[in-house]
């Protein structure tokens, strides 16, 4: 049995997913009795489909050498090209668009509507249309998994929904944007003014030329909205998140906080009654006072009490690892549904 995968979006994350398919497909095959097989790849201007399977290494090499993966799309859309093509899972890893979620939203909706499973790292569609996507999945007997959309490699969604299924989670407080954390940490540790710390983040490749997506809390708010839907069952979107970024954090404020043995961190807080991203004063030594670019989640639960999960929030293989965990979860479910021994 094969699990046929189409990767939509073949940038850093998409190529990372292709790489982990090469590396991990044998282990998944021996664990679940199904072979993970790449049958399609789309980038922003080209595509390749082959029902008999594609060599992921060759696709990565082709993309690196030619800048494309196959024939030009020539105005055709991903849903149009996949309409009559057999596959099982769409891995949707196109870049996040927080304005309207496109093109990822259309890709995911088309796949789910036709009963295909979706695994995604794309925050835009989830932060804007979670309810609609979940309804489409349910209606058509498809599954949607999105561990990679929040926290990169850090397993927060699957931990909360699967492993802590018996717990009541009261709240989650998290640092979900490594760029902001890097900037705030540099301000405190080196006494750099905000602008200088931001420039340093840009030079190191942590921040984009237009950093507003990170420093205005947009990225964190999208993740907060996803957590609110996925873990707390709240029907909300990115627009419902009360959001303040770190643009106005002054060196003077950082110093004043330090004098009180505190650091300033951009914290996302989600609970049944709270949905917010804002700079907060965090005591030094508290889990959320974490430095560097790591992501961290602090869960408050009724039985287990306080729990902290931390890990790498971004990166090619790190994000691909979260995608792989979702693919493995789907394969495990297939295995159980078919009564095969795990």
């Amino acid at each position, binding site marked *: 049995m094969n699990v046929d995968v189409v990767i939509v979006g073949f940038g850093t994350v998409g190529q990372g997913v292709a790489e982990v398919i090469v590396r991990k497909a044998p282990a998944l095959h021996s664990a679940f009795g199904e072979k993970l097989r790449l049958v399609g790849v789309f980038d922003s201007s080209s595509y390749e489909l082959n029902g008999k399977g594609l060599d992921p290494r060759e696709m990565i090499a082709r993309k690196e050498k030619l800048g494309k993966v196959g024939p030009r799309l020539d105005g055709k859309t991903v849903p149009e090209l996949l309409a009559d093509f057999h596959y099982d899972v769409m891995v949707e890893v196109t870049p996040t668009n927080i304005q309207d979620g496109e093109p990822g939203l259309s890709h995911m909706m088309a796949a789910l509507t036709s009963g295909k499973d979706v695994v995604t790292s794309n925050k835009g569609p989830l932060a804007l249309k979670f309810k609609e996507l979940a309804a489409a999945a349910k209606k058509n007997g498809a599954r949607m998994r999105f561990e990679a959309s929040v926290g990169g490699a850090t397993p927060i969604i699957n931990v909360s929904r699967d492993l802590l299924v018996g717990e009541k989670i009261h709240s989650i407080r998290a640092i979900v944007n490594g760029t902001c954390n890097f900037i705030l940490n540099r301000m405190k540790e080196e006494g750099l003014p905000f602008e200088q710390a931001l420039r340093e983040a840009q030079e190191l490749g942590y921040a984009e030329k237009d950093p507003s997506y990170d420093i205005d809390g947009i990225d964190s708010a999208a993740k907060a909205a996803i957590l609110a839907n996925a873990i707390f069952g709240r029907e909300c979107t990115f627009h419902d998140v009360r959001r303040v970024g770190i643009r106005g*954090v*002054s*060196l*003077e404020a950082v110093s004043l906080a330090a004098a*009180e043995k505190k650091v*300033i961190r951009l914290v996302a807080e989600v609970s049944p009654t709270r949905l917010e991203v804002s700079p*907060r004063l965090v005591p030094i030594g508290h889990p959320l006072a974490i430095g560097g670019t790591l992501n961290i989640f602090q869960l408050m639960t009724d039985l287990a009490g306080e729990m902290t999960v931390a890990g790498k929030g971004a990166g090619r293989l790190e994000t691909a690892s979260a995608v792989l965990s979702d693919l493995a979860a789907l394969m495990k479910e297939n295995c159980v549904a078919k009564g095969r021994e795990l």
Partner: protein
Amino acid sequence: MRVHADLRLKDVPGQLVRALEPISSFGGNIVGVVHHHDQVAGGRISVNVTFEVKSQKQLESTLQAWKGLDIDVARLSSLFETFEFEYVITGDISPTELREITDGIESVNELDSVDLRYSVSPSTGEKAILIFGKVKQKAALARVDDFLRQRALQSGFLLISGLGE
């Protein structure tokens, strides 16, 4: 309100239960009891009781009941439970603005204390102000928070709130 009471009970069986009964019957919550068998004076034993009541009226009813039961209250101290708040505000904040902010916080019911600490950069003139204090009821924290959030929106300064519980 948490109350510490030093009681003097007659050194006869059943007195401790008699002394504690009014606390719970008026809705109080007993936190701790220390019975000093070795401290007997004038035929009475010393007992320290710590309990929580929701109001002054509840405490007065308990004291009245003890009086009726011939239980001496040698010493009584009470302490309100307080809830802390902490913020840093930074940006262009004029002295008038700051005065209005402190006035606003001081007008919140159940405020116990409010304090400020300033920091101004001599080179850039950047200002940051730590605002910290206590309220006597948890609900008052939300009122302080609402006030500061609205003020930050209206005046354009950045509000950095404490992590809270």
